[in-house]
C-alpha cells in the first residue's frame, strides 16, 4: 500500500513531526475559518476579513519587536482593529468601505514602522517574509494549546449566537424587528472574525489569510443555499485544500527549480482559488440551461431552488 502511494506521499511524510503538527493545526484552522467565513461572505465583509489579515501584520511585527509570540501579536492587533472598525461604523453598509480602508491604511503604516524598527535593530529582513507569507510547517508545538484554545473560542462564539447571527446577516431589518440586538451580534461576530483571521495568519501568513476565510465559504455558498450545509461544506473544502496543499508542498521538495520546496501557502491558496472557480460550474450550467429555455417561448417560471 505504501509502495503504491509513494508517488503521492513522499518518503517520510507520515513520520515527520512538523507534518503531523501542520496537518492537525491546518485542519483545525481551516475548520474554524470555514465556519466563520460563511457569515463573512453572507454579510459582505470580505474587505474586513482582508483588513484583519493585513492589520495582523502590524500586530505580528509589533510582537517581533517586543519579543513575544507572533500569534499574540496577531490576536491583539486584530482585536484592537475590530474595535476601531466598530467605532467608525463598519456595521452600516454606507461608509463601511471607508471605515475599513482607513483603519487598514493606518494599520499597514504601523506595520511599516514596526518592521523598519525591527530590521534596523536586528539587521535581518527575514521577519517581513515570515510574517507576510507564513508557513504551516514552521508552527512550533508550544503554540498549539493557544491555537486550540482560540479556535474553540471562535467556534463557541459563533455557535452561541448562531441563529440571531444568521438572521441578522441575511436581513438586518427583520432581525431588529424581532428584537435581536443587531449591533451587539455584529460586534461579537467581528470579534470572532478577528480571532479567526489571526489563526489563518499564523498558518498561511497575514496577507494570504483572507483566502482561508473567504475562499471555501464563497465556494460552499455557490454550491448550496442551506446554511448548515454551507457551513459543513465550507469546512470540508477548507480542510481539503489545506491537507492537499501540505502534501503537495512536502512533495515539492523534489521539484525544480530550487531544491527547497515551494511555499505551502501558495498551494493552499491556489487550491482554494481553483475550488472557487470550479464551484461556479454548476451555477453557470444552470444559467445556460435557463437561457436556452427562455430563448424558446416558454411561460415564466419561478426560479427553482436546487
Amino acid at each position, binding site marked *: 500500500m505504501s509502495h503504491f502511494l509513494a508517488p503521492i506521499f513522499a518518503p517520510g511524510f507520515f513520520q515527520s513531526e512538523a507534518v503531523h503538527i501542520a496537518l492537525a493545526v491546518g485542519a483545525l484552522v481551516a475548520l474554524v475559518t470555514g465556519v466563520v467565513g460563511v457569515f463573512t*461572505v453572507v454579510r459582505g465583509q*470580505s*474587505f474586513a476579513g*482582508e483588513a484583519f489579515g493585513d492589520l495582523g501584520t502590524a500586530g505580528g511585527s509589533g510582537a517581533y519587536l517586543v519579543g513575544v509570540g507572533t500569534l499574540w501579536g496577531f490576536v491583539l492587533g486584530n482585536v484592537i482593529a475590530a474595535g476601531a472598525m466598530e467605532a467608525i461604523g463598519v*456595521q*452600516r*453598509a*454606507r461608509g463601511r*468601505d*471607508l471605515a*475599513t*480602508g*482607513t483603519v*487598514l*491604511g*493606518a494599520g*499597514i*503604516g504601523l*506595520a*511599516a*514602522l514596526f*518592521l*523598519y524598527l525591527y530590521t534596523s535593530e536586528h539587521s535581518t*529582513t*527575514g521577519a*517581513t*517574509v515570515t510574517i*507576510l*507569507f507564513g508557513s504551516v510547517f514552521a508552527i512550533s508545538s508550544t503554540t498549539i494549546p493557544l491555537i486550540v484554545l482560540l479556535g474553540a473560542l471562535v467556534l463557541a462564539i459563533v455557535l452561541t449566537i448562531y441563529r440571531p447571527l444568521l438572521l441578522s446577516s441575511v*436581513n*438586518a*431589518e427583520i432581525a*431588529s*424587528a424581532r428584537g435581536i440586538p*443587531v*449591533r451587539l451580534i455584529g460586534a461579537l461576530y467581528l470579534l470572532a472574525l478577528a480571532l479567526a483571521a489571526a489563526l489563518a495568519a499564523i498558518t498561511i*501568513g497575514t496577507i*494570504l489569510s*483572507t*483566502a482561508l476565510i*473567504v*475562499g471555501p465559504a*464563497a465556494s460552499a455558498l*455557490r454550491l448550496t443555499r442551506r446554511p448548515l450545509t454551507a457551513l459543513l461544506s465550507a469546512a470540508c473544502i477548507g480542510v481539503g485544500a489545506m491537507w492537499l496543499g501540505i502534501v503537495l508542498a512536502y512533495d515539492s521538495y523534489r521539484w525544480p*527549480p*530550487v531544491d*527547497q520546496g*515551494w*511555499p505551502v*501557502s*501558495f498551494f*493552499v*491558496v*491556489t487550491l*482554494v*482559488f481553483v475550488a*472557487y472557480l470550479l464551484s461556479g460550474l454548476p*451555477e453557470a450550467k444552470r444559467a445556460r440551461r435557463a437561457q436556452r429555455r*427562455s430563448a424558446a417561448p416558454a411561460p415564466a417560471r419561478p*426560479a427553482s431552488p436546487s
Partner: protein
Amino acid sequence: MFSGFMVNAWEVASIVAVVAGIVGFFTVMRGSAFAAHAIPNGSFAGAAGAGLVGVSTLVGLGVFSLGGALTIGLLGRRGRHDVATALALVAMLALGALFLSFSVEYAPEVYSLLFGEVLGISPNEIAPTAILGALCIVATAVLYRPLMLSSLLPEVGEARGISSFRMEMLFLAILALATTMTVPVVGTLLIFSLMIGAPAAARSFTDRPLVAMALSVAIALLAVWSAIAASYETNYPVGFFVGTISAGAYALGRAWAWRRRRRGPAADRPASPREPPRASARLYHPHMSDARTASDDDWAERAERRLAAAGRKRGGARRALLELLAGERCALTAVEIEQRLRTHEGRAVSRASIYRILDELEELALVQRVETGQAMVRYERVCEREEHHHHLVCDACGLVMPFSDPGLERAITSLSERVPLTVSEHEIVLHGACRDCAAAA
C-alpha cells in the same frame, strides 16, 4: 531637505499625490476601496515575477495589475464583488509568494515594494511616472461625465446607454494604470492610503464633486509632503506617516461632517422631540432611524439647488415641506404631510399648496409617486442607490412600511437581463395584513 536625491522624491511624490487624489475620488464614490487595495497589493507579485524572468519591474507590475483588474471585473460580474476581489487578490499574492521563494536575493526588496521607498527614487524614474500619471488624468477627464453618472446613478446611466459593466472595467483599468506607475516608487501602502484617506476626507467637507476632487488632491499633496519631511527628519518609513496622516485627515473630515449635521437642522427644529412616525420605522436598524443622516441633508440641499436652478421661487412652505420629506424614510400622502407640518413644524400649509409643491418636486425628479393601490397617491423623496427600498402595505389599516432585500434586488437585476425590455426602474408593493391587524383578526 531640498537637495540632490530629495528633489526626485518631492517631484515623484507630488505626481503620485495628484493622481491618487483624482483617481481616489472616484474610488471612494464608487465604493471600490477594496479593489483599490487589491490591485496594488496583488501587483506586487508582478514585480517579484519580473525579477525572476528578467524583465523590467514596470512590465511585471503592468501585466499583473491589469490582469488583476480584469479578473476582479469579470469574476465580480457573476457572484459577489467583494468575494471576487478578495480571491483575485490572494491568488496573485500566492503567486508572489511562489516567485519570492524562487529568487533568494529578492527578499529585502519585498519590504520596499510593499511599504515604499520614496526617498530612494532615481531621476530616470520620473519620466515614466509622469507619463503614466498624465495618462491616468487624461483618461479620467475624458470619462468624467459617464463615469460620474454611472457611479452615482447606475440605473439612469444604463437607461442612457452607459453600460455599468464597461464603466467598471474602464475604471479598474485606470486603477491598474495608476498602480503600475506608483508602486515601484512609493509602494503599495502609500498609494492605497492616499487613494482612500484623502478623498474620503474631502467628501466630508463638501458635496460638490469638482470642489471635492480639488480638495482631495490638496489633502493628498499635503499628506505626502509632510510625510516626506517627517520621514527625512526622523528616518522612519514614509508609509507610516502617510498612513497616519491620511487616517487623521479622514477622522477630521468625519468630525466636521458630524458637527455640521448637529448644528444645521437642530437650530430651527422645535425643542419637543419628534414623535416616532407610527410603526413605520420598525423595520429599520435602531441606529438608522434616529435623527437624520448626511444623505438627508444632501437631499434637502440638492433640492434647493435644483429648484433655484429651475428658477422656482422660494417660500417658507416649500422649505418646511423639504425639511419634512428629508427626515422621512418612507412615502407619505399629501394629507399626512399636511398633518405633520401642522403638528411637528407648527405650520399650516393648505392642501392645494402641498400638491403644487409636490408636483414641482416631481417634475424635477426630486420626489417620486408611490402607487400603493390605496385611495391616495403617496410621495417620497428620490433616494440614493443604497437606500433604495420597496413597500409593505397593510390593506386592513393602511400602514405602509419600507423594506429592502438584497436578494430581491439581485433577482430583479438578473431577471432584467432576460426580459425583452431595457429596465430602468422597478417598484415592488407587497399587500397583506400587518402583524397587529393579523393578530386582531
